[in-house]
């Protein structure tokens, strides 16, 4: 079954832009990205849209559909209110390049600021041995497809541009949590305390755990409950819990 839908797509660049209406055919089983491609093919060949896999695995087609950060390829038309205009805008946290394409360089900058995995001494690549129980938590975070929808929806940077230098965002705080939970990461041996630096250098304290990152994650990663809150608790161990501090000093607790 086909029907005619009204799509309102933001078109423009950093200098300005506008929401533009399109009447477009929609067929059974289609996702929003299919319809955007039809607009591109039939009405606006110069419409800029970033996409790649159409399977929710590359994280390219992030946008805001009816005001909600989503992957266009994973948003079925049947889940949107029938008969109502579908509004599509680029992610509103990042600078726009053109139409639906934004400059997500902020995220790559933040990724570079996170110190990488530190290999354990005396263990060569290929000799790493880990128990499944020890890597379960980190593996959940490895499902991330880097669509940056969590970064887009996080009000710390979305609503406060001035916080961008200080705040890594949920995706990269999750990366710190992943490394801090990694059974073989030897950062502590090299003098790097990931728990403390999460708070001091990557802005963990800005997070007020309102869970929007979890709500928008297309991979269903429990970012807040499994990464951000555990990381906050680990930072508390280091910075705000004198009992833990005392225990580590007298040798009752290891770091």
């Amino acid at each position, binding site marked *: 079954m086909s029907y005619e839908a009204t799509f*309102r797509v*933001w078109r*423009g660049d*950093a200098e*300005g*832009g*506008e*929401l*533009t*209406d*399109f009447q477009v055919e929609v067929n059974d089983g289609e996702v929003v990205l299919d319809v955007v491609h039809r607009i591109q093919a039939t009405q606006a060949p110069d419409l800029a849209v970033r996409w790649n896999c159409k399977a929710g695995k590359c994280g390219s087609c992030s946008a*805001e559909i*009816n*005001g*909600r950060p989503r992957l266009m390829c994973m948003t079925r038309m049947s889940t949107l*209110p029938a008969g109502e205009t579908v*509004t599509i*805008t*680029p992610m*509103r*946290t*990042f*600078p*726009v390049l053109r139409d639906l394409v*934004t400059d997500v360089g902020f995220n790559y900058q933040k990724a570079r600021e996170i110190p990488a995995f530190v290999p354990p001494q005396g263990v060569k690549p290929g000799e790493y041995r880990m*128990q499944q*129980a020890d890597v*379960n938590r980190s593996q959940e975070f490895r499902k991330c497809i880097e669509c940056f929808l969590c970064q*887009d929806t996080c*009000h*710390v940077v*979305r*609503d406060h*541009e001035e*916080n961008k230098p200080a705040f890594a965002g949920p995706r990269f705080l999750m990366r710190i949590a992943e490394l*801090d*939970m*990694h*059974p073989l990461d030897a950062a502590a041996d090299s003098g790097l305390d990931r728990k403390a630096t999460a708070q001091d250098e990557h*802005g963990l*304290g*800005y*997070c*007020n*755990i*309102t*869970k*929007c990152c979890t*709500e*928008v994650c297309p991979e269903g990663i429990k970012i807040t*409950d499994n990464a951000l*809150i*555990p990381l*906050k*608790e*680990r930072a*508390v161990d280091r*910075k*705000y*819990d004198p009992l833990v501090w005392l225990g580590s000093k007298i040798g009752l607790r290891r770091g």
Partner: protein
Amino acid sequence: MTTETRPPEAAETAARGVHSPGRAAIAQRHLRLDRWWLPQVMTAAGLLLFIGYSTWRAFFGLHTSYAAPYVSPFYSPCLAANCPTMKGGADWALFGSWWQLSPALIVLIFPLGFRLTCYYYRKAYYRSFWSSPPACAVAEPHAKYTGETRLPLILQNVHRYFFYFAIPVAGILTWDAILGFRDAQGRWGHMGLGTLVLLVNIVLIWGYTASCHSCRHIVGGRLRHFSKHPVRYRMWTWVSKLNARHMQLAWASLFSVGLTDLYVYLLASGAFSDPRFF
């Protein structure tokens, strides 16, 4: 075809948030069509209802806080000398007779602090009362935001200490529930509807306490090698399952505390008699 150009009000809000230079020029603060405000309104209504009721009961409920053998959870343990005599209960008068205000005010600080710093309630009131954010992808009204990086909100990091205090408080309420298996004269081996009310309440309170994120961290979350600590890993797994229901347990236990107190109040004020099972 064009439906919108950059509107006049955009200039007023320029250089802030979603209207910052370089971002897509969209006048609206958000484009959500769903009723995004509804959860926030319901959360605020639920919390305000409890705050109003518990404030009234904490300040003015002393004389209806005990209906043998049941004690209101707002008044246990009772740490001042002006408590009603609770046969076998926790009326310890540690504060002596100089405390003339309601004894509930002494003990309620601990559950209040536990819930105020709770990771779930933080989300709830940041969204509902402070609009930070009002909802996902809905622009917040504040010009500045520092989150929990400085006073007073940096104090949220004391949550685990309130968790430590919550354990003995829950233990005392458990004892109160056990005392409910007596009759009004203090003889054991009896049960009434109130016993059931107290039991349900304490199960929910333990559920909420054990599902706490700090508890999850303390029992095992802080470890890096679960495989070297199988018992703690098992405990962490259990707490994690409960933790996934933390929000539901927070609400259920909040209402169960209020309803348990209401039940004791109705008994103590003579509104009806406790239906006895045996």
